[in-house]
């Protein structure tokens, strides 16, 4: 067969540096390469993902939450949902696992550079979007106005709480947070679905690029809202999620029409998928 370097399924050893609890059933894993490589050389783009492999359990695609501008660790924000993530949660600090990647098409940095950005995240959708958010904050001068809209179902499920709070100290990002429900009455901001946030801030659709990441239901309503506000379709990008096995466009699981979420996505320009019925 070919040399190992040619094998698209070949894995790289990593270790878990920290496993930081986030909200219930969500953790932020910080990884270190154990084959002598650096994350700088790994060279991921915001919005890309890795295949995480735990032998005996399998592989799962996980989006990268950290930006390439912070290359000490690779960070994965993971919900305990399937067999691989369950096994991952049971591992101790220092445990050895494997990854492959980085894979897929990330957020279109070249398109976004110099533009006003509207980032809309729902729930765990903030995990991949965080790689872009921190990237643009780290290179703040390269981007125009930044607006972050983030909605979760209730106040207990706000991810990256301390980072979101830290924006309070800066005046170069506008942020609007929402929760669907607030039964305890503790939420100081907007209560309602994330689209409600569009009524609470002024947007300039012709100059703004919208980047979405959230559950499928969110896309339909946010898209409707963006188009109604006059966002050109060319200004809308979205990160999609699909069941994946190989991550490199061969196994067929993540097909969306004639596209593969793993190689053509996970970030798609809305224009590319608007006519594919099963996409959104």
């Amino acid at each position, binding site marked *: *067969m*070919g040399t*190992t370097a*040619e*094998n*698209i*399924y*070949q*894995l790289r*050893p990593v270790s878990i540096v920290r496993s930081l609890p986030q909200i219930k059933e969500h953790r932020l894993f910080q990884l270190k390469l154990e084959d002598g490589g650096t994350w700088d050389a790994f060279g991921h783009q915001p919005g890309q993902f890795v295949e995480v492999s735990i*032998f*005996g*359990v*399998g*592989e*799962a695609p996980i989006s990268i939450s950290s930006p390439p501008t912070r290359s000490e660790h690779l960070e994965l924000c993971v*919900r305990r*949902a*399937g*067999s691989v*993530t369950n096994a991952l949660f049971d591992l101790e600090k220092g445990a*050895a696992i*494997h990854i492959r990647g980085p894979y897929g098409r990330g957020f279109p940095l070249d398109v976004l550079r110099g533009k006003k950005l509207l980032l809309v995240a729902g729930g765990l959708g903030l995990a991949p979007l965080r790689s872009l958010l921190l990237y643009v904050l780290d290179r703040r001068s390269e981007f125009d106005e930044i607006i972050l809209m983030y909605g979760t179902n209730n106040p207990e499920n706000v991810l990256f709480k301390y980072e979101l709070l830290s924006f309070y100290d800066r005046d170069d990002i506008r942020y609007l947070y929402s929760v669907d429900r607030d039964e305890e009455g503790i939420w100081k901001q907007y209560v309602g679905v994330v689209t409600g946030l569009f009524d609470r801030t002024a947007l300039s659709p012709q100059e703004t690029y919208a980047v979405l990441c959230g*559950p*499928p239901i969110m896309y339909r309503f946010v898209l409707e809202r963006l188009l109604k506000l006059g966002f050109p379709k060319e200004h809308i990008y979205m990160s999609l*999620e*699909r*069941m994946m*096995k*190989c991550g*490199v*466009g*061969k*196994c*067929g*699981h*993540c*097909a*969306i*029409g*004639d596209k*593969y979420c793993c*190689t053509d996505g996970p970030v798609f320009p809305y224009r590319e998928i608007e006519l594919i*019925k*099963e996409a959104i």
Partner: protein
Amino acid sequence: MKGLAKKDLLSVLEGWRGLYSVLAPLRREQGDIVVDRLDSDRFTLEFGKPSLSPKGILLPQSEVTFNVEEGAYRETPAKGATLLFGVRSCDAMAILQSASFMTRDKEDIYYRSRFEDLAIVVMACEGPQNETCFCTTASTGPWLRRGFDLQFYDLGDLFFVETGSERGAELSSGEQFIDITDSEILRKIEDFREKAAAAIPVVHEVKQSMTMLQDDGVGDDFWNRFGSKCIVCGGCAFVCPTCTCFNVYDQVRGEGSGQRIRTWDACLFGGFTREASGHNPRGSQALRLKRRHEHKLRYFNETDIQEALCGCVGCGRCSDYCPVHIGTLEVARAIVQSK
């Protein structure tokens, strides 16, 4: 152009065994046809359309991709060169199309190394092998225009042998192969081709249904009707020569050791697209059947080799084996009727 006396065929096949693992159609004791390691006693030329396509030669039904020892993944080594004798043109085209997909962009080295080491010897069809053959619709037969190493035409006592590559020229350089210059025989080939193509009717509904799918002209009701009939056996995908979707799982032998294995999978299964959260973008059998047929007749990821349809090569096996008659032919005809 070469010729080979039919009586010399077996000795030629046996001779090729020096360089290749020769796979050929065999008739087993029970009467069924398999394509397997050459067994001269069981070799047959009366093989029609074998039940299974040859895709498993390149993408085995189950294949170890890594041996895992003490947590380290070691790639499984390549096996030697293989010669596939007697493959039908539709199946050979499926191999070529699948190879274009498996090696595009990011190369699947398991597939690529087997493909590079595969000699393809086509047996041209002199007519349909059964009533579901529609290669003339898919432009994949009854013989191949390119992509083969050798192509045999059965002219009775003699095979006319067409060379399609350098490897083919080497394979046919033995003394049993005679040079053909006789214009009488060349005329016979033209005659063979014409008669063969004419004997396999074009199924116009296949192309009509492709246009309708392209225009989103097939409604949900249509897929619901077939979805309620499908028994979710996955057989259509497993017999399909161009279905290459696979699943990956681990076989554990001990702590940190075992094998990573990939196996055929099918988009007809609910778990194929179900995410860990439980969300399933193709949540009904109707949507899954729609996907399968759109991948065959609307969305292609393969590269065309000879102005053929891509995705479906017209072998008809899905129509042969679906227990509830949801083959490509039945679906295409029903799509056109639903207009």
